[in-house]
C-alpha cells in the first residue's frame, strides 16, 4: 500500500518537472562535437586533402560500407581517386575515425540524412569532402611522414636528420 502511494507520487511529480523532449525540428537539440553522425573527409592546415587512401577505415568498418581506390598526385602524395560510403549500411560506430592515421575521416553531429531514394544514400568523395580541418586543426600527416612530396624533401619533416651522404667516410 505504502509503496503504491509512493509510486503514484513519483509519477505525479513528473507532471510538474521540465520537459526533456524538444520540439524537433522547430527546436534543435544540442549535440556535442564528438557526436557520431554524418562522416566527412577533412583537409590539412595547408588546405590539401588529408586522406591518403591507406584503406584502414574500409578495413576496420564492421559493415564494409566504405570503398576507395588509391591514386597518386604529381607531387608524390597518395590520394583517394574514389571514396564511397554507403550510408544505407553505415551504423555510425566511429571505428573509421579511430583507425584513420591522418585524421582525415571524422564524424560530425549531423544526423539528418533521410532520403526518399535509397540510391542517394551513397555519398561519393565530392559529397564527403569539406573545406576545413574538422576537429583536429594542426595535424599534417606529411609533416611527420618520411615520404617525400613536392615542397618537402627528404630530411625536412619533423624530427628528421638531413639525407645521408653515402660518399662520406666520416664515422
Amino acid at each position, binding site marked *: 500500500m505504502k509503496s503504491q502511494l509512493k509510486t503514484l507520487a513519483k509519477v505525479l511529480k513528473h507532471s510538474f518537472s521540465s520537459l526533456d523532449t524538444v520540439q524537433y525540428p522547430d527546436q534543435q537539440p544540442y549535440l556535442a562535437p564528438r557526436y557520431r553522425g554524418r562522416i566527412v573527409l577533412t583537409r590539412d592546415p595547408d588546405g590539401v586533402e588529408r586522406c591518403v587512401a591507406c584503406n584502414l577505415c574500409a578495413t576496420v568498418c564492421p559493415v564494409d560500407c*566504405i570503398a576507395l581506390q588509391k591514386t597518386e598526385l604529381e607531387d608524390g602524395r597518395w590520394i583517394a581517386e574514389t571514396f564511397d560510403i554507403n550510408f544505407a549500411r553505415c551504423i555510425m560506430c566511429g571505428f573509421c575515425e579511430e583507425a584513420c592515421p591522418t585524421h582525415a575521416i571524422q564524424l560530425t553531429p549531423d544526423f539528418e540524412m533521410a532520403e526518399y531514394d535509397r*540510391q542517394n544514400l551513397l555519398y561519393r568523395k565530392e559529397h564527403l569532402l569539406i573545406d576545413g580541418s574538422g576537429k583536429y586543426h594542426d595535424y599534417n600527416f606529411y609533416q611527420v611522414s618520411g615520404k617525400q612530396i613536392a615542397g618537402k624533401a627528404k630530411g625536412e619533416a619533423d624530427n628528421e636528420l638531413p639525407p645521408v651522404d653515402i660518399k662520406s667516410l666520416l664515422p
Partner: protein
Amino acid sequence: MPEISIDGKTYQVAAGKNLLQVCQGLKLQLPYFCWHPALDSVGSCRQCAVLMFQNDEDTRGRITMACMTGVTDGQRFSIQANSAQKFRQLCIEATMTGHPHDCPVCEEAGECHLQDMTLISGHIERRFQGPKRTHKNQYLGPFINHEMNRCIACYRCVRYYRDYSGGTDLNVFASRNNVFFGRAQEGVLESEFSGNLVEVCPTGVFTDRTYSQHYSRKWDLQSAPAVCVHCSVGCNIFPAERDGILRRVTNRYHPDINGYFLCDRGRFGYDFVNHGKRTEHAWQRNNSKQTTEQLNAQQAQDSLSAYLENTEQLLAIGSSRSSLENNFCLQSLVGAENFYSDNSTELETQLQRLLSHYRDTQPSSDLKSLETSDTVLMIGADVTQSAPRIALSIRQMIKNAGIAKAATIGVAYWSAAEVQNIRQDLKSPLHIISSHSTRLDDVACSIDNSHPQQQLDLINKICSMLSDDNPGAVDSRPDQISITDKATAICQHLLQAEKPFIVTGIHTGQPVELFLASLKLSAILYRRNKHAGLICAVPWVNSLGLALLNDRQQHFDTVLQRLEQRTVKTLVILETDLYRYCPAKKMNQLLADVANIIVLDHLITPTAEQADLLLPSASFAEQHGSWVNYEGRAQNSVKCFSPAQQRRPAYRWLTANTPFHSIVNDLSGIAECLNELPSLYPSQSADFHSARKTVRESGRSALHSYIDIKDIQPNSDPESNYQHSQEGVASNLDDSQSPAYIWSPGWNSSESLNQFQDGESGAIQGAQPGLLLFSKGQTDSSLVTADQSSDSIKGPPAESKNLLRALPYQHIFADEELSSCVTSISQLCPRDTIKINAAQASYLDLVSGQLVTYSFADTAHSLGESIQAQSTAALPLSIDDSIATGVVLLPALLLQRAAMGDDCWLRLAVAGERADG
C-alpha cells in the same frame, strides 16, 4: 635423426639443418629478417635469438642465433625464455629507431614482414625520441619503386641480387647505420629477376611499381592458384584481382619449378589482362552494309554455329598460348583433319621430336634437379631471354662445387658467408655452345661462339667421343684440332659429373640439325649416366601441349599454302596473331580471299581486326585450364575472377557451354599420357568450398553501390571448389587443396609461406604438383638411330657471295606476344637492330649505326619471291664482336615474321642501294 628439446618439448628433427629451419618446419613462431630459405643464413639481423643450454644442469643458458646453429642430438633450447624474448625485443626496437612513420602511404603495409616481426617480438611502443636518419631515393626503372628511408639493413636485397641472381648493379654503399642499398647511379635495374626484390625485401624499400599504379591492400585481393603464361617453364603464380582489374602477380612456391622466385616477364607482364585493347563484346562484320554490329551472347553463339555449318573448305588454327582445353575444343569442333597449329614446319618437327624423345628415350627433368646438377652444357639457346627461370637455376648449379668443397671441411651448405668464402672463384662447369654471347657468359667455364656448322661439328665430336671410348683417328686439319680440344674438355667434365645436364631450346630460326644433335648428345649421355638430364625450353607456354594434340603434325606452313591456293572459305583462329608469323602485306592479301574469318581472342590483335566474327575470349586469369610446360608437366590453372562483359573462356564459346569437367574427361581420352588429367580437377565437394577472398576483405557493401546500392550477389563458380567471395574455408585452414592466397594469422607477408609448407622447403600443403606426362620414359630403348641427326647444316641455296646465315637474337621483353603489349615491359624493349661482328662489317664496308637493308636469298620455299619483295625495311647496324663470322642476328620476332623456314640466308646492303650480291 637428432633429438632436440625446445621449450621442454622433444622433437625428432632432420640432421644437417640449422635451428631456424627446424623451427620453421615445426611451425614454431620465431622471428627473423636476414634469413631466407633460398638465401640461407648469415646471422646479421640478430632477430632469431634463442636460449641454448649447455647440458641438463644448465639453467641460465646463453643467447645464440638459431639460423647459425646446426642441430645435433641432445641439444636443449628455449624460444620463450624471458632473456631471449627481451633480447629480440630490444633488437627490433633498435632497428625501428630510424624507420619512418610511413605505413599509411606504403605499398608494403598489411603484408610487411617488419610489421609482423615487430608484433611477434612484442615491441609496441617507440621510446627513442631522437631524429630519424633519411636517405635519397633512386629511379630503378618501370618495375621497382625505391624508398630507402624504410630500410632496416638486413642485406637480403644485395644477397639475393648479387649472390643469387648474379646481378652486378645493385650494391651496398656507406657504412654503419648509414648503409645505402641501391645503384651507383640512378637507372634501370639490369637483372631479369629484379622483381623478386619486392618479395625478398622484408619491408617497403623495394615495392612493385606497376601494382602501385592500381593499388589495393593485400587483404582486398581475390586470388587463385594459377600458372604463368609468359614462357614454357610454367611457373606457379598467384594472380590477384579486385573490382575487375588484375592488380598484380606474386610467386606461388613450387619446389620443382620456380621455387621462391619469378622472372620480370612473368611478374610484370600481367597487365595485358587489363589492356585498353582487350575484347569485351562480340562483333560481327556486315559486308553488305559495310557496318560492324555488336551481338548479344546468344546471337554470337548462333552466328558461330551458322558459320561452321558448312565444313567444306574449313580450316582452324590452334594456339600455343591458349590452354589445352581451348585447343581441344576447337579441334573437336572442326575435326582433326582441319585443325592446324601456329607453328612452322621446323618448329612442329622439333616439338614432335622432343615429345618422342621424352616418350621413348629419356624422361624429362625439372628445375630442382637442374639446380642440384654439377655440370651443364648449354647449346644454342640464351635461356635468360627465352625461358628466364631456367637461367636462374643454372646460376644456382654453378655454386654446387663450392658447397661440395665446404662440405668436405665440415661446413654446412646453409652457412652462406662461410661457403662463399670457401668457394672463392670455384665454379661448377657451365659450357656454352652458341653463335653469340649469352647472359650466362659471366659464369661460364667455356664459351664457344661459332657458326652453326662448327657448332654441329663440335657436338658431333662430343657425341662420338662419348659413344665410343676410343675417339679414333685424330683429324689433323687445323680447324678440326681446335674442335677436338674443345670437345675433349667438355667431354671430360660431362663424364666426371655425377649429374650432367644438357640445356637447349627450340625457337624460330634455329637450325633443326643443331637441335637434333643436342637430343642425340643428351641420349648418349643418358645411356652412360642415368642421372643425366635434359632441359629444353620450347617457344611458348603451351607449345608442347599443342604439339601433343596435333599428332597429325599439321603446321602453319600448310595453312599459308592453302590460303595461297584459295582453298579456304571459313577460317577459325583461336587466340593467336597470324601477323606474327607472316609479313603484314602478305597476310592482308591472303586474308582478303577468305570469306569468313572467325577470331576468338582476348586482345584486339591485327588478326582480330580482320575478323568477320570476333568472339571475346577470357585471359588465363579468367578461366580454368591446363598448360603443358617444357618438361611435359600438365598443370591446372584456376580461374581468379569472373570475366567482364561478354568475355568467356574460348572452350565455352566453342562447345556452347558444355561443363568444364566433361571437356576435361573427353580430353583425357585422346592420348594415353593424358589419362589422369581429370585428377587435376577434383569434382565438386558437397562441403564448404575454399574462399578466393580473404576474411578481411573490405568495402563489400560499397564497392558496387554506384551501380546499385542494393548488394550485388557474388558470381558463383560451378567449375571448381573455389568461391568468388569470402564464404568458405580460409586458405590457412584447408590443406586438401592449394590455398587461394598465402596468409596465416600473425603472418601477413609472403613469408607466411612457411606456415603452409610441408616441413622446411617442402611443397605447399594440398597444392597439386602437376601431372608429369612422360615420367615413365622407357630407359631400355637407348638406340640412337643415325637418321635423327645429320653431319651438316643446310648450306646457302646457291654458291653466291656475301650470304650470311640469319639467326634470331631473343630478348626477354620483346619476344612474347602478351607481355610485350604491356607498357612497363615495352619500355624496356631494345631497339631493333641488325647485328654482325666487326670483321664482317669491315669486309662488307658497313659501319656501326648505318641503316642497312636485308634481303633473303631465294630458298626452296614457294613463297620465296614474295618475301624478297617484302624485305626492304632498313634497320640500324650494330656491331657485336661475340657474334660468329658468317652469322647475322635479327630480332627474333622480325625473323619469325619475315623468314619462313630455318634455312634463312640473307644479304645486307646499305639502305638506298639495291641489295644484290
